[in-house]
């Protein structure tokens, strides 16, 4: 049995027939080939799969694709607008906030949401807010720097 799900992903309405148990992250990765959203665990701890659903950061492994029916989803692939990197993407590169790159898409998507809610976050706020995103490479030092710089750049 399959069900029909329509989600607007990065501005493009996408309709697919999927198994009802299909997670949003599987819908993105396997049905739309948007493989920038990663899967790093099975318990919604690591945050590698964070995307924006109707503007809010959501772990795409925690919801079914069917639950996102009709929603607007932004993935890492849709963050850069008009071929120009998002300020948070720029900040991650500038501050060497990534090494292997696997946690990076989820980390950036979380950071953008964080900065939208806290335009001028303290280091403590950034560290607390990033609790749901695991990185094994960087020790977070440069991620924290990048998120603060990215938030500043987003303020303009």
């Amino acid at each position: 049995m399959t069900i029909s799900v329509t989600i607007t992903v990065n501005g493009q309405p996408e309709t697919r027939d999927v198994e009802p148990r299909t997670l949003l992250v599987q819908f993105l990765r396997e049905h739309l080939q948007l493989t920038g959203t990663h899967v790093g665990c099975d318990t919604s701890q690591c945050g590698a799969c964070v995307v924006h659903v109707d503007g809010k950061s959501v772990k795409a492994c925690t919801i079914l694709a069917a639950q996102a029916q009709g929603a607007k989803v932004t993935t890492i692939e849709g963050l850069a607008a008009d071929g120009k990197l998002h300020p948070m993407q720029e900040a991650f590169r500038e501050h060497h906030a990534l090494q292997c790159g696997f946690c990076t898409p989820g980390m950036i998507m979380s950071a953008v949401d964080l900065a939208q809610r806290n335009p001028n976050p303290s280091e403590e706020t950034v560290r607390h807010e990033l609790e749901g995103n695991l990185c094994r490479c960087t020790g977070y030092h440069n991620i924290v720097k990048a998120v603060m710089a990215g938030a500043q750049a987003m303020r303009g």
Partner: protein
Amino acid sequence: MTNQGIGQSVRRKEDFRFITGQGHYTDDINRPGQLYAYFHRSPHAFAKIKSINTDAARKMPGVVAVYTGKDVAVDKVGGLICGWTVKDKKGEPHKAPRHDIIAIDHVRHVGDQVAVVIARSLGEARDAAEAIEVDYDVLTPVVDVVTALQPGAPEVHADAPGNLCYDWDFGDKAATEAAFAKAAHVTKIDLVNNRLSPNPMEPRSAIGEYEPGTDQTTVYTTSQNPHVIRLILCAFVFGLPEHKVRVIAPDVGGGFGSKIFNYAEETVCVWAARKLKKPVKWTSDRTEAFLTDAHGRDHVTHAELAMDKDGKFLGFRVETKANMGAYLSTFASAVPTYLYALLLAGQYTTPAIYAEVKAVFTNTTPVDAYRGAGRPEATYVVERIVEAAARELKIDPAELRRRNFVPDDAFPYQTPVACVYDSGQYAKALDEALKMSDYAGFKQRKAEAAKKGKLRGIGLCAYIEACGIAPSAVVGSLGAGVGLWESAQIRFNATGSVFVHTGSHSHGQGHETTFAQIVSDRLGVPLESIEVVHGDTALVPMGMGTYGSRSLAVGGSAIMRAADKIIDKGKKIAAHLMEASVDDVAYDKGVFSVKGTDKQVPMAQIAFTAYVPHNYPADLEPGLEASAFYDPANFTFPAGVHVAEVEIDSDTGVTRVVNWVAVDDFGKVVNPMIVEGQVHGGIAQGVGQALLEGVVYDPKSGQLLTASFNDYCMPRADDLPSYKVGMIETPCPHNPLGVKGCGEAGAIAAPAALMNAITDALGTEKINMPATPQNVWRVIQSQNLAAAAE
């Protein structure tokens, strides 16, 4: 050009694809007609397999095949191998019991492979795997080394009596005993180095693929060393010719050692793909990763340090029991031996050292190299006992270290445990670290913390490590089954851009940038015109891969050699173009010139001429490319000092890291930004080990109790401080770049520094890692009870 070469914090070339979600990790790759593998794994730590019923599973929708160990055996597939043979005290080779890619008669740890389902979708494969029925005769497991060595303990393998893999020793026993006989003071310590799960954020993944028309097998796999995987699969597991097997390790999301090894799952994918003539894909979920990725550490150690009345170290003896897990993983045997005991001199002039190591089989996941591999364990023993000795002797721990440092003028320095340290300035690093951490002001900070009811502690760690593994002849004589050189190839294109092929593999280290900087610096090619290629055995010359902080020291040196060959050939072409003698041609940063004249030719023109050789030396081959292999003359020995400062809440037992200083000597630094990033990440893993992480098995059932991120505490952003990183540069004298290696330093230094700070705050050595709030609180309570009783 000046801001792109060696010594510059060039922003990484590889980042664009990662920050835009366009990396290509193995699980992002899908092949036409691909099938999915899902493993049925043992729920028991130790059991005899009485029967397996796969009938129901075979009838499930989408199922193409269900295989058990007996199906694998029919095809005479070899077991997984250990590539380093350690000889025990009697000269006998270690015990390496057979490790089948799917278990046949026994399962020996929770998660051992019992069967595999191959189906058209992952969901269907998983559903069918649940329908497999296995009848087990459950046996009593043993999970820890102390119990496993006791008489009458359950035996994990019939061909490893007493669970002993080897009983090995190293160093001069008699000289060490003599040193202890004349000692004025002996400090003793018992330590547990907790078992860790490496947990790169990308779970392992593999695709096996077979093309009957060309008899070509392709393996996509999350590997740190694709050629080593090809070698093992071809020469030991399948008996296939290497030219018919291509291994591709594309973007790999972290490794930390755990992706060095040849694993059962990738091997099963290859076997099944060849059998079914369809691509077969497997991707680990996180619980499978906890159950099957090789773990790290897991040592139980007793150590004793003999000193004279002034605290001068006279002798050091160490007795370690190392857990190997259920099977001997690819390089497991080398970790608690040659990567451990050879580093027990630390930064000190201790003249006599003796180590005994028993490696032990248990019903747990195999243990192998994890970031640092043996060197963190050695540093932890040395630096904990040195700190404890200082406290017993009432000598400042910094001063006791200083009294025993190998002095600057003693290099090259022969230790009593085989290593020849190449270069270093140990006292300078200590001085710098003490200054940066305001060590002198600590007493005042401790007093201020006490007023707030907080226990404040400071701890040092002066670590040494051996990187750049390794001179092939040396490791060969110690039992390694491979050489440990590295390869490089520089290929110019006609229009001046360059491919750099390296046998190293980048899985976060930034080789695409660092290696390009070297080539840019040496050959004068703009960074954007250089493409570093790695991770594909069909594209890159045979190489040994990345681990042990070797890539720059060994792989980078190979690139330098290749660049020298390009320059040598370029001089011949330049001499022809400028109508000069080759001996009169000078070269500097991409420009060939005739000495004493203003005639010059840039590298780009040389490249074009080499491929469009209309006006060209008669006796010279066209083309501009060069291959080089580099086998290091020695290990190289980065060293440094880390200072940790903590505040402990005595009501809750929560330890807060309030200050962290690292002063490292990595020799010449190519990209300081990348090197600092490596230090940060290493420290975080070391802090994780000391404060948060630990693999826990239930001692009775052998169940893994920490099999998800819910139960295994990974360091998160708000568990960690920002770090102050300083560097000193004492170039390595024996490689062309003068570089040493930086990837593991933080993980090596951090646990001892942090535990020394915690034991300083608590006033007792008796606490093991991880110093969780519960563990710390218990120590504080027992001290309070003891104080109340007095």
